[in-house]
């Protein structure tokens, strides 16, 4: 097994245990073997290397994640096993069975026993065929009964069959395995790597590739850095990987694929900072490239406000291209969801009172937790329209005191457009209703709520020069 150990780092125990459970002789191989490890712990890689070194073990691979439900899964088992046997024993004439006939779990049993029966007279010794279900618990429509079906498959296939199906499952979730712990299946755990192991693996896997990458070559040619050996290039690449890990390890955790992504994102801009002086001065190079180690830049929004200087220029491009009415409706919906209705009149009332009566006092004490952190509460559509009217600016065109001003509304009415915009906001899922099927908007029971976080609403309100923040000052 030393050959596998050369290819797989930090998995010596796992490889050794794998080889003690997986043998060519079906008599000393357990029918089910479970491999557990969270994502990026090298389960698939180790297994692949193991089978690549031990080529005499017949193995077929399935990825349940692309099979969605149990029926295609079982059909795929039938298909791949049949194809594998056909290609391995090409000189045996066998009838073809249609894998699509497998529509029930017991039909899979029947299919497999019929299939194996054909090889009964041909083979002298009994052999194993290993079926690797890579990511059993990533099947989308997984249920608890499916794993039971697979682990008891071997009991129904005849014991004296010359071909024995042995199933290897790789599973991420420990909670899934713990459901079946009383079956005492042999289990090999792939623990998560730690930071040093991650660094070594990344250096082992990526350093050579980074040296041979196009940006570095171009830079070297442009900058005419010709007094460099390969070892020194390697040093630059290894140093870069180490810097990336140190800078972003707490952000990614022990996750190889995220670190790989960050290496790919940042290598080019790192290379651009290389020149003749800092090639041999890692600290100098780090200083000149400090910007790429400070932020993750892990966003596809090019104009994210943090990393560009010309903030004012981007002010025009908004988060949402909504109409002003929609924007105010969204703000009003946010206010309705997060301010309590009992304080509405103290917040929004501006009219001078003709009749006598006290205005509302408003909230006496601050709230303990900021309500904006919590889920939005429901409101009725009338309250939304009232708040909308209270905050929507209407510029009066008519001159003050003229006859035309009598005719003109100083406040926005809920006209057709308002309802259209509201309906559109709902279909854009920016406002939501109480979830139920076939919701009836005209029903008085239907309550509404806003469905956007604070960050978006504050940006929307900024675009219409409305300070929504002042309504929430008293909260915390």
């Amino acid at each position: 097994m030393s050959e596998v150990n050369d290819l797989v780092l930090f998995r010596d125990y796992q490889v050794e245990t794998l080889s003690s459970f997986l043998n060519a002789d079906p008599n000393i191989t357990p029918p089910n073997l479970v491999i557990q490890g969270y994502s990026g712990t090298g389960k698939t890689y180790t297994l692949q290397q193991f089978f690549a070194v031990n080529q005499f073990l017949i193995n077929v691979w399935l990825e349940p994640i692309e099979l969605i439900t149990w029926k295609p899964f079982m059909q795929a088992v039938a298909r791949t096993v049949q194809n594998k046997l056909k290609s391995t024993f090409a000189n045996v004439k066998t009838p073809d069975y249609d894998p699509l006939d497998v529509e029930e779990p017991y039909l899979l049993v029947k299919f497999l026993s019929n299939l194996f029966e054909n090889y009964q007279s041909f083979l002298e010794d009994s052999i194993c065929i290993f079926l690797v279900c890579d990511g059993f618990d990533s099947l989308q429509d997984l249920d608890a009964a499916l794993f039971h079906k697979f682990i008891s498959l071997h009991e129904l296939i005849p014991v004296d069959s010359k071909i024995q199906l042995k199933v290897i499952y790789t599973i991420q979730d420990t909670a899934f395995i713990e459901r079946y712990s009383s079956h005492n299946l042999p289990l090999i755990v792939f623990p998560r790597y730690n930071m040093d192991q991650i660094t070594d693996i990344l250096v082992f896997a990526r350093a050579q590739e980074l040296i041979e990458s196009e940006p570095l070559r171009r830079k070297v040619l442009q900058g005419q850095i010709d007094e460099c050996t390969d070892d020194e290039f390697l040093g630059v690449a290894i140093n870069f990987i180490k810097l990336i890990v140190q800078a972003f390890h707490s952000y990614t955790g022990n996750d190889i694929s995220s670190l790989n992504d960050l290496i790919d994102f940042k290598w080019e801009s790192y290379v651009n900072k290389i020149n003749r002086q800092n090639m041999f001065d890692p600290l100098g190079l780090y200083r000149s490239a400090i910007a790429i180690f400070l932020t993750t830049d892990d966003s596809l929004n090019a104009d994210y406000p943090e990393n560009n200087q010309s903030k004012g220029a981007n002010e025009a491009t908004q988060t949402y291209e909504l109409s002003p009415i929609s924007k105010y409706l969204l703000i009003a919906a946010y206010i309705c969801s997060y301010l309590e209705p009992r304080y509405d009149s103290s917040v929004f009332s501006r009219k001078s009172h003709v009749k006598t009566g006290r205005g509302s006092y408003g909230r006496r004490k601050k709230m303990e937790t900021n309500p904006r952190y919590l889920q939005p509460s429901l409101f009725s559509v009338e309250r939304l329209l009232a708040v909308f009217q209270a905050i929507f600016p209407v510029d009066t065109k008519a001159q003050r005191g003229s006859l035309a001003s009598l005719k003109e509304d100083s406040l926005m009415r809920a006209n057709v457009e308002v309802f259209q915009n509201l309906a559109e906001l709902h279909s854009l899922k920016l406002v939501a209703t109480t979830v139920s099927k076939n919701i009836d908007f005209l029903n008085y029971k239907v309550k509404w709520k806003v469905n956007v976080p604070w960050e978006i609403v504050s940006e929307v309100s900024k675009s219409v020069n409305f300070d929504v923040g002042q309504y929430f000052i008293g909260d915390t």
Partner: protein
Amino acid sequence: NLSPKKVQPLDSGFKRFKHFLMRHLYQSLPPDQTRPYSYLRETHQEIDRLLKQSIVQKESHSSILVGPRGSFKTVLLNHELALLSERYHQQFITIRLNGFIHSEQTAINGIATQLEEQLRKLHGRIRKPVNEDTDISNGSLTEVFEKILRLLDSAAVSGSQDKSDNESTKITVVFIFDEMDTFAGPVRQTLLYNLFDMVEHARVPVCIFGCTTKLNILDYLEKRVKSRFSQRIIYMPQIEGFQQFIETVEEMLCPPSCDDGLKFVKSWHSLVHNELSKPNSDVHLLVKFNYETFKSLQHLRNGLIPLIFGAKDYESLENSFKTCSKTKSYNHNLLESSLTTKINSLSNLELCILICAARTVLKAKDESTNFNLVYAEYEEMIKSINRRIPTMAPTKSNEDTTAVIFDNKIKLWKKRDIKNVWESLLALNFLTEKSAVGLRESAIAAFYASNYQFQGTTIPFDLRRYQTQVTLQGLRRIVPRSSMYHPWTQL
């Protein structure tokens, strides 16, 4: 050792011994070389008696084996049937059903196909294959069921069956039900009714064995089904006491006979015996530990297999058996995805966020939290830490090093960066959605769930409510005292 497609040539005596030992552990030796463990002997005899009565003397019987998983229900039945098939090969056919794989509907087809297959095998060896049999499993479900019933119910009616019956005696049909309780569902129980009815009335001798893990299996059965069942329930014996466990482990490790002159068997026997009887040997402690926690021979066996397989020669087998390091590392490895190891494998930021989540959960009334609350807690925590530690004097005077500011403040990550951390905590199962139903029990329930849009998926990321898998008190015990975040593991 890259011999293609062949079992290893078994060159040396030790390799043969190792292979023999492994097969003994897996209980895959030929049936005359395996012997069931001695504590199972009485049950074994009982099963043996029942099977012989129905196979040799052609009586009909039904019984149910009840025992927890891994209590050798299937092993005993298989062993007994294998033994009997050597002597009474022509006398019986076996039909196996598994409640996980067969449903009430498909079990009928399953019976028909197996019946057909087994009869063909039996007849094929007596004389030419009988072709009329092939249509047992053809036709619609009711037809198939009727055919089976007619065939089993009265041997005189069935076509090809009675030919073989006439010349000798009838063929016994042995049914083995695994997970019988799934057939004893809340509705109808047609299959069980008909089969138990056969035991009472049919002229073909039928022997039914049900295996189940449910102790109250009789409560599952309907009144009419129960009245047809023979009321014979065999409870699988459990190992009583540590002494018996030790003895059984010794049986498990020692192959019973050495017919082909394996020279290692004797010394292996004495080694195993010595090590197990020494009260402070590593093996003894391991067995003791297993007895007090799992009390499971399979669990012990899984750990011993790497030990035995990894041995290069007899001396190394002896040594590694004495120290049991391989088994210990197997047992250690099983725990490497536990909650504690997972927490220790987190980066400092992930740990910090987890602590914050546990803090907010502890403060909340309904023990749930969301991303906003956790980030607010995190922000406050980092600010408070940074306030307390004295920062190094900023190097203002030195203009060169403005780019690099050495300070020992803790970085406060931005909200959008923390989202990645939050997601990885989700992927590691530290957080679960509030009142979520994880894995559905059956395929139909999973199907219903996939057609339903849950509220948690429609609301914004920051506002989804989660519960933590580990409490703050739990974290306090796991996070080392030297950690900067240890003081924050209590409110």
